[in-house]
């Protein structure tokens, strides 16, 4: 009996001393800096790729920015330094959220021509266009269907897509304009692409981190799109893209390109192929970062965007005549 009591006592002691905890940092400028650097160091998914592509060295970043941290700095000053540090990642999916501001890196589209305007889009849609959930659509004068999906955060159902495809069925071709679409829900992006294929297609690969090391990734998993069971588009399609096409929209472009009757036209897309996760600092600030990268069907990175099949920019002379160069080029392609 004494032996039993001893075993129980030892078990209890073992239990009490084997707590599962995480290393913590103080809620000080130094602590929050170290916490943020480490969260990104252990979870961010593009270190190796960006090391090669843009020379990113996260340890060097630590050295450079640590010297700018002091115990006396204000919250605003701390946020400024942390935001600059995060901008080194050149990633639109990386944000620091405080009660006063949201840090962001938007150079992936701010530094380039937009290649679309709301005024021109309104001109083409007119006032009698149709709206099916997140999709605006109409038939242009030359019997080309125009579908505008402005943001994948706005949902679209299978029934909506059935109605859109059925309404446009007699058109000679289809323009899907996703310029300015900065992403949203992947499901809607996939749902739209499933209307463009009659067979299962390999569209890319995905992987995710399995540990804290920069190269700790799962083996790539193939990603497919399956044809929709609803009404599918059987004629040619031109997808209009620009630098603002990001995240889920970037994935839509990747998926659409894999379909045989689809041509992409416009400027390089913005990219953003890392599915973002969230975490937080000791002071309660939230941080978002890319955690799970997607690749194209050739296992190439699409973090910095996808080139169109046909490069095309908005011509200022066309704009002056209320003509959208990209839509007009797409109409010409679909008519011929």
């Amino acid at each position, binding site marked *: *009996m004494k032996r039993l009591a001893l075993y*129980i006592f030892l*078990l*209890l002691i*073992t*239990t009490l001393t*084997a*707590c*599962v*905890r*995480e290393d*913590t940092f103080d*809620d000080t400028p130094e602590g929050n800096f170290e*916490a943020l650097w480490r*969260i990104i160091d252990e*979870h961010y*998914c593009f270190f190796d790729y960006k090391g090669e592509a843009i020379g990113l060295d996260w340890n060097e970043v630590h050295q450079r920015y640590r010297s700018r941290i002091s115990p006396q700095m204000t919250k605003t000053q701390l946020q400024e330094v942390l935001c600059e540090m995060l901008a080194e990642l050149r990633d639109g999916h990386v944000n620091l959220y405080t*009660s006063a501001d949201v840090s962001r890196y938007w150079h992936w589209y701010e530094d380039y021509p937009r290649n679309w305007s709301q005024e021109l889009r309104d001109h083409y849609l007119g006032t009698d266009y149709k709206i099916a959930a997140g999709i605006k659509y109409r038939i242009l004068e030359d019997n080309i269907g125009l579908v505008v999906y402005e943001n994948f955060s706005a949902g679209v159902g299978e029934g909506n897509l059935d109605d859109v495809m059925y309404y446009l069925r007699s058109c000679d071709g289809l323009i899907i304009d996703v310029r300015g679409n900065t992403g949203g829900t*992947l*499901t809607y992006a996939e749902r739209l692409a499933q209307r463009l294929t009659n067979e299962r297609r390999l569209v890319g690969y*995905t992987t*995710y*981190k*399995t*540990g*804290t090391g920069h190269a*700790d990734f*799962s083996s790539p*998993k193939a*990603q497919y799109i399956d044809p929709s069971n609803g009404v599918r588009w059987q004629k040619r399609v031109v997808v209009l893209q620009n630098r603002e096409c990001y995240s889920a929209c970037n994935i839509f472009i990747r998926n659409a390109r894999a379909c045989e009757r689809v041509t992409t036209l416009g400027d390089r897309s913005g990219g953003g192929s890392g*599915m*973002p*996760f*969230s*975490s*937080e600092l*000791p*002071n*309660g*600030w*939230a941080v*978002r970062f890319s*955690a*799970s990268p997607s690749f194209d069907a050739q296992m190439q990175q699409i973090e910095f965007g996808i080139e169109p099949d046909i490069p095309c920019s908005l011509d200022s002379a066309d704009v002056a005549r209320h003509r959208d160069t990209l839509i007009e080029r797409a109409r010409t392609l679909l008519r011929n």
Partner: protein
Amino acid sequence: MRKIFFILIILTNLLPLPIMGEGAGERVSTHATLFGIGHVNHLDTYLSPLEYQGPQLTYLHETFRPLLRNEHIVFQTTTQGEFSYSKNEAETAHYLGGSIRYDFGWGRRWCDILLPGLDLTAGGLAGGTLGFLYNNRNTNNPAQARADLRLSAAFRADYCFHIRKQTLALHYQAHLPLLGMAFSPQYGQSYYDLFDQGNYDHNLVCTYPGNALSLRQLLTLDIPIRRSTLRLGYLSDLRQLKVNGIRQHQYGRSFIIGYVRNISFRP
């Protein structure tokens, strides 16, 4: 608190007549229904590296009875549900957590061992848990599902004593999971990848004290009040999991109160 106490006394008096003590050849099946309020500390590094703390409500139902054929072998069941609301230290985000667990098993009981009135029971339990932990501001990692199956060692001590002709009963029990299976995403795997894309990647893991050292302890005192029995106690439920690069803990501590029904039966 006084109101709750009063309501429980009324409630216990409305229940069927309980029988304290065992007559010759009689055996007693004990059913306890308990409610707890306490504090929880959550850590789940899939959601956040920070610990969240806050109040927790607990529901607990237990049965404990000897077998018909052998009074030294007892059968017991435990159903436990919790709901918690916890915040990070800066109070900028919160978790909503909930779980339900069920355990059942058998044990060997030794009566009047070491000193009169002390019964010791040792045995095993099989059980499982289903639950969730939701973070209100995360993006593609907004929640964590909890699911496990386990085999546990169970120890129980029951001690009856008298104070001024009043028979009181002190109970202590401990459950220590020894072997099981638990669900967990991989370190950076999203639920979209897991369930929408159907990519399984060691998401069911074997658990043992080396990666899931957990201990549930319950100390209660039974106080007969007229024809009923009031049970007061303290529940310490420490659950931990360290798999797939993710660290989780849920340290719950609650004061509990409830009533006990003792139903006698003859084999």
